[in-house]
């Protein structure tokens, strides 16, 4: 082995002994071509940052412009007296403390005055329900538009839709295993609806017009979503295991085989587990509502006090937090459903052996090429 091919000794820098990229290029291509090649290689290796920076600055400028436009088009009003004079900063802060009870847009039962309670069962269409219909329309329209003219070889629009759906589907199945494949559509639906509902509250005109309010900032909507999830995982549990099998997960008599005391303890623990099932919709709804509502208030107050600059950073933070909240709700709904369809014995065996029974091969959902689920 010659000195040229041997590795550099410990303690010496390889850069000291080896020729630089420019020198190697020069020896291979000659002095004129080498300089061009080095410049080209450098540009490929490190793409210009100017373009990215320009896009970020443009995004910030658009957000600021939207905020300014929102301020003039939908000026904040004093919550207690919408027609009275606007006093800064008192009214600017108060205007952002939305009442927990949503504003009634359409009263279907005119014989009774609309309730101003936080939790209501009135026959009314409040601002949050009205906005949630708009969010649903946006999702449906987007999916229809992107899925128009589906082909075997997808175009850009179809690719975008498939990327979103297959990404979420792959994530759900990697989390819940093959059993989660069946629940991918509901997982994606929960995620997209909650995500757009959360993000709708960040638009300048939502919240400043009485008829529009982010759906998930209303506790009635989040309770409704949680109840849908609650019904789903129990119905699926009964469907998968049967009524007897499903109730047997909670009220098992197998403990009596090990003595009456063990049996009674097992029944008591099962009863507690049964009661804990009813905690799930409470935690699901309160977490989502609390995070979105508090985020909106914090963003609104900071926007009102520090016009334009700081809210942009806060807006970025809220975009991420709202994304995470949508993801958390969907993940928990999925995992609770997977837990509901799992046999109690299976779970214990899984836990003891710690070796899951998974099929070999691809775990991605089997989607026919060129198709998307709406």
């Amino acid at each position: 082995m010659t000195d040229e091919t041997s590795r550099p000794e410990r303690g010496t820098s390889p850069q000291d002994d080896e020729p630089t990229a420019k020198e190697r290029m020069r020896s291979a291509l000659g002095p004129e071509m080498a300089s061009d090649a080095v410049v080209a290689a450098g540009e490929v290796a490190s793409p210009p940052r100017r373009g990215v920076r320009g896009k970020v600055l443009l995004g910030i400028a658009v957000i600021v412009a939207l905020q300014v436009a929102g301020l003039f088009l939908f000026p904040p009003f004093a919550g207690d007296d919408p027609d009275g004079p606007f006093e800064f900063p008192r009214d600017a802060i108060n205007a952002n403390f939305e009442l927990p009870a949503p504003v009634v847009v359409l009263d279907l039962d005119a014989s009774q005055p609309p309730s101003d309670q936080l939790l209501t069962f009135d026959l009314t269409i409040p601002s949050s329900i009205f906005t949630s219909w708009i969010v649903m329309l946006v999702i449906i329209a987007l999916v229809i538009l992107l899925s128009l003219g589906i082909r075997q070889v997808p175009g850009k629009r179809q690719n975008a839709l498939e990327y979103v759906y297959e990404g979420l589907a792959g994530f759900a199945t990697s989390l819940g295993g093959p059993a989660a494949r069946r629940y991918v559509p509901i997982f994606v639906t929960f995620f997209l609806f909650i995500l757009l509902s959360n993000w709708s509250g960040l638009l300048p005109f939502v919240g400043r017009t009485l008829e529009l309010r982010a759906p998930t900032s209303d506790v009635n909507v989040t309770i409704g979503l949680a109840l849908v999830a609650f019904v789903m995982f129990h119905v699926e549990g009964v469907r998968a295991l049967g009524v007897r099998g499903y109730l047997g997960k909670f009220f098992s008599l197998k403990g009596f085989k090990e003595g009456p005391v063990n049996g009674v303890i097992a029944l008591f623990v099962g009863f507690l587990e049964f009661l804990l099932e009813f905690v799930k919709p409470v935690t699901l709804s309160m977490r989502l509502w609390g995070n979105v509502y508090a985020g909106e208030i914090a963003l609104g107050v900071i926007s009102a006090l520090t016009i334009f600059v700081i809210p942009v950073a806060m807006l970025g933070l809220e975009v991420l937090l709202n994304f995470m909240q949508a993801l958390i709700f969907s993940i928990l709904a999925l995992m609770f459903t997977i837990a509901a369809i799992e046999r109690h014995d299976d779970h214990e065996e899984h836990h003891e052996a710690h070796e899951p029974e998974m099929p070999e091969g691809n775990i991605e959902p089997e989607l026919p090429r060129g198709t998307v689920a709406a």
Partner: protein
Amino acid sequence: MNDLGRAGAYLALFSEIAIVLLVTTLFGVLLGYWIDERVNTLPIFVVAGLLLGFGAGGLAVKRLITRFLASFDRAPDQNDRS
């Protein structure tokens, strides 16, 4: 599962742990307070409700952790096999 997805999954687990403990303990205390007011035995049932609520929360957390972590641990294995 990518990094963001894994972070979301762990965030879901940890936030659920916190809120389950809070809700069950609060529910136990409120139930105990309601019983105490009825039978005029304050604070016996409040303390009992606190302990029962916290115990039930602990049980729920144990179930959550065992089930969720088993799923999360399973995910990398599945990805390796695929």
